[in-house]
């Protein structure tokens, strides 16, 4: 094992962390402001990926697809909020779980009806298709660097939005006291629709960005949903900062676990057993991490709203 490989893996971990952050930022935002458990988050991720693949397929431009993913996911989000979610804020978590689970079924099946069962084609834009050399040491996918870049932009954007804008002020007010902002005369219904649409747009754009390096197919949102929940629970539900830290932590632990655990196991077992045991351990590494953190800090690393 060389040092270069180690750093490359660390970079991979951070990069994966950024992907996770993109997936989970919207989820934690919606929970923080509305106290809503949104299982349909993964579905919005899928909607974004499909919109991007469709538009990119027609126009030939990935960037137009990205814009489309943003718009379509936000619209789908607003539609869901107005049609269903709005009625659930006052309900307990159980009703929210059931309703958003139902939304998963509805959206997945509707998407299959429209697009069929075969995976869609979506590739990275040509300009980012070639690897670039980092410090002359290794070739690294330029698209992955782009994802790190987008992750940072989104993090900064959300930070500015929440701390510096009027909307952000209302969001913060909503996090701390839901009755108060209504008393302040803020139109809470519109605010919630807006926040939900924003959360959906974040999910959608994550779906489009990751769809280009993964596969665009019905059901792609399921694993993402679970990962995003792991991230925001580790970080502290409702906290964007927590989601950022949680995502990086999960990204690095998962990547380094996949890389190091099988390697470490070779000191204990034969190569084949090592691959088996290491593989098994690394697939549960992030859950062990999550359980461990919650045992020590039952409310996640960063104190978030609504917890």
């Amino acid at each position, binding site marked *: 094992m060389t040092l270069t490989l180690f750093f490359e893996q660390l970079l991979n971990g951070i990069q994966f962390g950024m992907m996770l952050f993109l997936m989970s930022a919207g989820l934690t935002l919606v*929970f923080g402001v509305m106290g809503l*458990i949104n299982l349909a988050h993964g579905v919005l991720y899928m909607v974004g990926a499909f919109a991007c693949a469709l538009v990119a397929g027609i126009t030939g431009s990935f960037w137009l697809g990205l814009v489309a993913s943003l718009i379509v996911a936000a619209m789908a989000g607003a539609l869901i909020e107005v049609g*269903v979610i709005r*009625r*659930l804020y006052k*309900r307990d*978590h*159980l*009703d929210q*779980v*059931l*309703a958003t*689970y*139902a*939304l*998963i*079924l*509805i959206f*997945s*099946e*509707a998407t*299959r*009806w429209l697009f069929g069962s075969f995976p869609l084609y979506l590739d990275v834009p040509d300009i980012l298709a070639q690897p670039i050399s980092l410090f002359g040491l290794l070739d690294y996918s330029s698209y992955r660097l782009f994802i790190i870049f987008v992750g940072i932009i989104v993090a900064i954007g959300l930070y500015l939005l929440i701390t510096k804008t009027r909307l952000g002020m209302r969001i913060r007010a909503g996090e701390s006291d839901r009755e108060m902002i209504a008393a302040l005369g803020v139109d809470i219904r519109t605010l919630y629709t807006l926040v939900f649409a924003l959360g959906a747009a974040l999910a959608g754009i994550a779906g489009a960005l990751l769809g280009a390096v993964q596969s665009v197919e019905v059901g792609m949102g399921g694993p993402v949903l*679970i990962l995003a*929940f*792991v991230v925001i*629970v580790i970080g502290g*539900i409702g906290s964007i900062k927590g989601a950022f830290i949680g995502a990086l932590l999960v990204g690095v632990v998962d990547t380094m676990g996949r890389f190091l655990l099988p390697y470490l196991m070779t000191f204990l077992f034969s190569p084949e057993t090592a691959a*088996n045991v290491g*593989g*098994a351990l690394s*697939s*549960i590494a992030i*859950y*062990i991490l*999550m*359980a461990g953190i*919650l*045992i020590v800090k*039952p*409310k*996640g690393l960063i104190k978030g709203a609504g*917890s």
Partner: protein
Amino acid sequence: MMLSVNREQKLNISFIALLFILPAVALSMDEPFYITLMTKVVILAMAGVGLNLALGLGGLISFGHAAFFGIGGYAAGILATHYMNDELLFSAFGYEYFGTDNMLAIWFAAMFVGAIAAIIIGYFSLRTKGVYFIMITLAFAQMIYYFAIAWPTYGGEDGLSIYVRNNLFDLNTLDPIIFYGICLSLLLLVTFLVSTLRNSHFGSALQAARQNEQRLASVGIRPFGIQLTAFVISAMATALAGALFADLNRFVSPDMLSWHTSGEIMIFVILGGVGRLFGPILGAAMFIVFEYYLGGITEHWGLFLGIALLAVVLFARGGIVGVIAGEVKHD
């Protein structure tokens, strides 16, 4: 003494009657498949009744009950496989154990292993509250799920086939109606126990813990112990259901441990009515009937199932029992 029967009790009684009448009808019409389908309902309902104890009475929203369902299933599968292949399961103090095909022993083992797992998972999970509890129970279940997929000894993702159903006394357990009878008896027994528990001293403390933990502690009853006990009993019922499910399908697989299974068990409970004695049973029945009939009509049955579930949440608060029998009454 006059027995006053409220609407919920009437509903429960008529539903029990249906559980007896329908299979008899299916039997007389020579439609064994419907008996099999009802057996599935009864078994899944038992998993739901188990979860309902933790979730409905204790307010412990466990998103990881598939872990116990699957553990129960694997306990049955592993014992039966060892017995069939005459392979050593373990040896201790010079005693060698080769598994069993005796259902009683299998049920006991399933509940025992389920209880051990629940003590460990509950001990750590109960330190957290709310959404964190939901997620940490999910995390534990996912650990077991991925472990089961990757662990080759008992089939990994391919699962484990039992080939022949296990035995109970001299009954022909392969006969659908007899196996149904076994499962129904156990369901009624478990439901009766949960009902007894609900009205007991323990049940009183448990339901108080759901509503106001602070109050319970301040009168000197530790919520943790009460909740952990409820969690363990709940897991045992779900593990028993898992063992029966293994025998029904003559097969166990990690699918039983997946988060979808946890979600489905939870849906039975919510659909039927949280905290209602017969809620999970009605919920499971509705769900299976829906899945079965819609599946027979359209390839896109998921869409309609989704719409139906959504309609229940939005317009039928308190689940099916809630709609028919009204709000919960406490004395």
